[in-house]
């Protein structure tokens, strides 16, 4: 398919939950640890005049008339703010900083004053009837393989309550998710090929993960697409779960719009739901622009040059750049580099690699960290003690085990550090033993050699050398 000729325009909208201690506008925990709700509150919402045209209002009224929303309250994760019984507290500074970081990483302009807005939402997912959202960055851009892509906005906003159950006349919502900080990133509709959509989503995801302050796991990131072709209409496709599905979804949507046009009908502005098959299903007509008016319960937030300088200095290194650096500087392969980055241990790795052998550092971080939980500081101490000695595998494991059980580095290294012998030494010793002990079994030779080296060499190396020598 010639997407260019079809006039494919595609934009991405990504919502990512932030991993902050508290929610965006109150001091409730944002950690999702409460298991059961403690009670329920029932509410009705009303359509507000001045919001939309007359037709929309009538429809809204009808929709909301008999709908009673049931909100479940959680002990540590719901307070009067979520229940719309208290004005919002000042915006969460931790969340604001993360959003500013993201805006900077995406080359956005950051206004000197950030205004929190109310965006009308009347499906019950916000108890107040609106979502609080603020524009933190605009006119940004991102480099892609197909050129510069515009980032139209980086916004900081509250997540909505989650649907627990939907019936015909009511919806049951959980208020634990309401108020969790989200960063929304919108791109300009300059994606013109299905594969490019995936590249953009991956790259934005990488930028977000680079802050190390985003939540991970199912439901923590939501991806929406806006797609249109020439003579078609902009449709919003919500909730793409897997990035790998993005190109397929774009293709199928383009086909769908093409088919509608070819059959002589008009493509309607729809909101559609992404399905796992790559197809989409109609959800509702795309609404007119939602009402946005100032959240006057919080004053505008000044962003000073000083604040920006501080954030600029503490900008995280992009994961992509980290990868490059680890591969080039330490000659690691890509998978190992990714493992270290994913574990969030890049800084630790580099410290350890400076003190002792890169290999040892790699092993300790990737393999041994799963078996033995040793605090970072102790590892640094240990490596400072090891310096440039070669420590055999078994000894290293035994030291790590002791450290994980609470022993100090001093105690573990009190008897001195087992230093591995070089392969040269192993070879000469093996030759000597073979010379003076003819006709023994492989196992017997191994026993003699292991005994001789007593932890100063690891079994694998000894076996390898023995095999080589036996072969002659």
């Amino acid at each position, binding site marked *: 398919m010639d997407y260019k000729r079809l006039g494919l325009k595609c934009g991405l909208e990504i919502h990512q939950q932030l991993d902050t201690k508290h929610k965006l506008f109150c001091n409730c925990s944002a950690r999702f640890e409460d298991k059961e709700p403690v009670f329920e509150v029932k509410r009705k919402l*009303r359509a507000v005049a001045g919001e939309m045209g007359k037709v929309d209002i009538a429809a809204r009224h009808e929709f909301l008339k008999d709908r009673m929303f049931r909100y479940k309250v959680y002990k540590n994760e719901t307070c009067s703010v979520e229940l719309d019984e208290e004005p919002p507290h000042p915006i969460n500074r931790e969340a604001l900083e993360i959003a500013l970081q993201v805006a900077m990483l995406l080359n956005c302009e950051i206004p000197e004053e950030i205004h929190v807005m109310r965006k009308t939402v009347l499906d019950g997912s916000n108890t*107040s009837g609106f979502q609080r959202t603020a524009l933190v960055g605009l006119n940004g851009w991102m480099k892609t393989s197909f050129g510069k892509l515009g980032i*139209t906005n980086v916004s900081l906003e509250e997540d909505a309550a989650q649907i627990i159950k939907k019936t015909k006349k009511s919806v049951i919502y959980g208020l634990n998710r309401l108020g969790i900080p989200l960063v929304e990133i919108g791109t300009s509709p300059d994606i013109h090929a299905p594969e490019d959509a995936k590249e953009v989503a991956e790259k934005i995801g990488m930028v977000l993960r680079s802050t190390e302050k985003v939540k991970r796991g199912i439901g923590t990131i939501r991806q929406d697409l806006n797609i249109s072709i020439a003579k078609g209409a902009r449709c919003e496709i919500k909730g793409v779960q897997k990035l790998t599905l993005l190109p397929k979804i774009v293709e199928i949507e383009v086909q769908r719009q093409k088919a509608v046009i070819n059959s002589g009908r008009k493509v309607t502005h729809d909101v559609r739901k992404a399905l796992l098959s790559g197809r989409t299903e109609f959800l509702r007509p795309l609404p007119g622009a939602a009402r946005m008016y100032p959240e006057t319960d919080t004053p505008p937030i000044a962003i000073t040059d000083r604040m920006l300088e501080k954030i600029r200095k503490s900008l995280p290194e992009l994961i992509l750049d980290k990868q490059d650096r680890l591969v080039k500087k330490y000659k690691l392969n890509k998978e190992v580099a990714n493992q270290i980055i994913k574990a969030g241990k890049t800084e630790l790795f580099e410290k350890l690699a400076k003190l002792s052998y890169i290999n040892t550092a790699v092993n300790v971080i990737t393999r041994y960290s799963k078996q033995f939980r040793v605090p970072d500081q102790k590892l640094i101490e240990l490596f400072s003690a090891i310096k440039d000695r070669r420590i055999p595998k078994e000894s290293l494991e035994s030291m790590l085990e002791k450290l994980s059980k609470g022993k100090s580095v001093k105690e573990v290294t009190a008897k001195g550090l087992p230093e591995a012998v070089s392969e040269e030494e192993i070879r000469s010793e093996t030759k000597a033993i073979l010379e003076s002990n003819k006709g023994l079994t492989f196992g017997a030779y191994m026993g003699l050699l292991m005994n001789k080296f007593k932890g100063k060499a690891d079994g694998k190396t000894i076996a390898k050398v023995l095999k080589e020598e036996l072969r002659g």
Partner: protein
Amino acid sequence: MYSRKIQAALRKKGLNIGDRILLTKRGKKFEGLLMPQTKSGDAGTIVLKLDNGYNIGIEFERGTSLSRSRTKEPEPEKREAAYELGKKGSTDEIKFDQKKPIVSMISVGGTITSKVDYKSGGVTTLNRPTDVLLNVSEITDITNMKNILTPFTIMSESMNHTHWQSLARECARELNKRSVDGVIVTHGTDTLHFTSAALSFFLKNLGKPVVVTGSQRSADRGSSDAGMNLICSSHAALSDIAEVGICMHGNISDDYCLFSRGTHVRKMDTQRRDAFRPINEYPFAKIWPDGKISMKNDNHNKRDNKKVVEVDAKFEPKIAMLQTYPGSDPGVMEHLIKQGYKGFILQATGLGQVPSKTKSWLPAIKRATGSGVPVFLAAQTIYGRLNCNVYSEGRAALDAGAVPLGDMLAETAYVKLGWVLAHTKTMNRIRDMMLTSYSGEINPRTLVGSFLY
């Protein structure tokens, strides 16, 4: 308010609030509608509404240039900005059913008729108070609200007795119309209970309900309690309860409202929907939006449409309400007496005790009552009934001339004292009137279940 520098720059280019402008700063361009700056924002920062609906603030520095934009704003953004700037309230009108019973609405301001205001950065009153009804279309099924008046508009924390007097006169005028079955007063919640107490005393010979209501959440949001409060108030205004009362949410769900006696109700939380609780009494009734009424207190005047309401709104404003507390200085009262204050409500502790050791209030009370300035005691605990006979300190207060007011709410007592003092100056007569129940403000019995209702 924008700084003088910005105002001058705007004037120079002939730009006004609401115009679509282009702001160029250090090579960067920002385009949008010029919005006002709030008091809590920086005066040297220009607020723009972007095409995506967001507002942002751009600092106006040397080298910033402003000009009229050459592009057109999208329709929804235009509409939204107009609404925000108060240029258009809705042009919609609500259509009432002529066959329904008539309830008059008197609107004097408050959160219930509010919207966003830029000058203060907060919330202020709507252009047309009746706009709030546009979101409550069910009201046309209940009543024909053909009389909607706005004698004045003020946030309730700034009200005084002159507002109560004006309100009483408007209420009486409506109530005495044969066609009107009841009156709803929409009002700010901060001093709602002062007003309901005042109306309880000012309106004599009441034969129809006067329902005072408001909302804790501003009417411009979808979750506002205004809607349900107005609907339940309509039912109350058409009920058999011919009293002045407050009708507001009964709990934090949208379940039912409580209709509580105007002299025995108080705002008990800064912000909850169910902040208004009856004090020392059961509410008259629980009222559901569908019209169901569950009576909780039969002690009320029953409807009698033939009764003609008289207004007796005389009020002596030079009175004060004070609290006694550890370390409090009776000199405050003495100072006020020197300033010509004519009577006091003291919120005393416990059963009606005032400090009697260091900085004792007793001498000051004795001097006041001895020279014709009445001192009445009300419960600082809000709930409960005073009894100065139990403790010797209480007796000492009695001996000094202070008069405890039973289970009367302090705020109600304050309003009543101003009303009584406008009628008589003799100490005995003042005391008698204060201890007589004109509108259920003193109960002879305390019902146990009324605590923290």
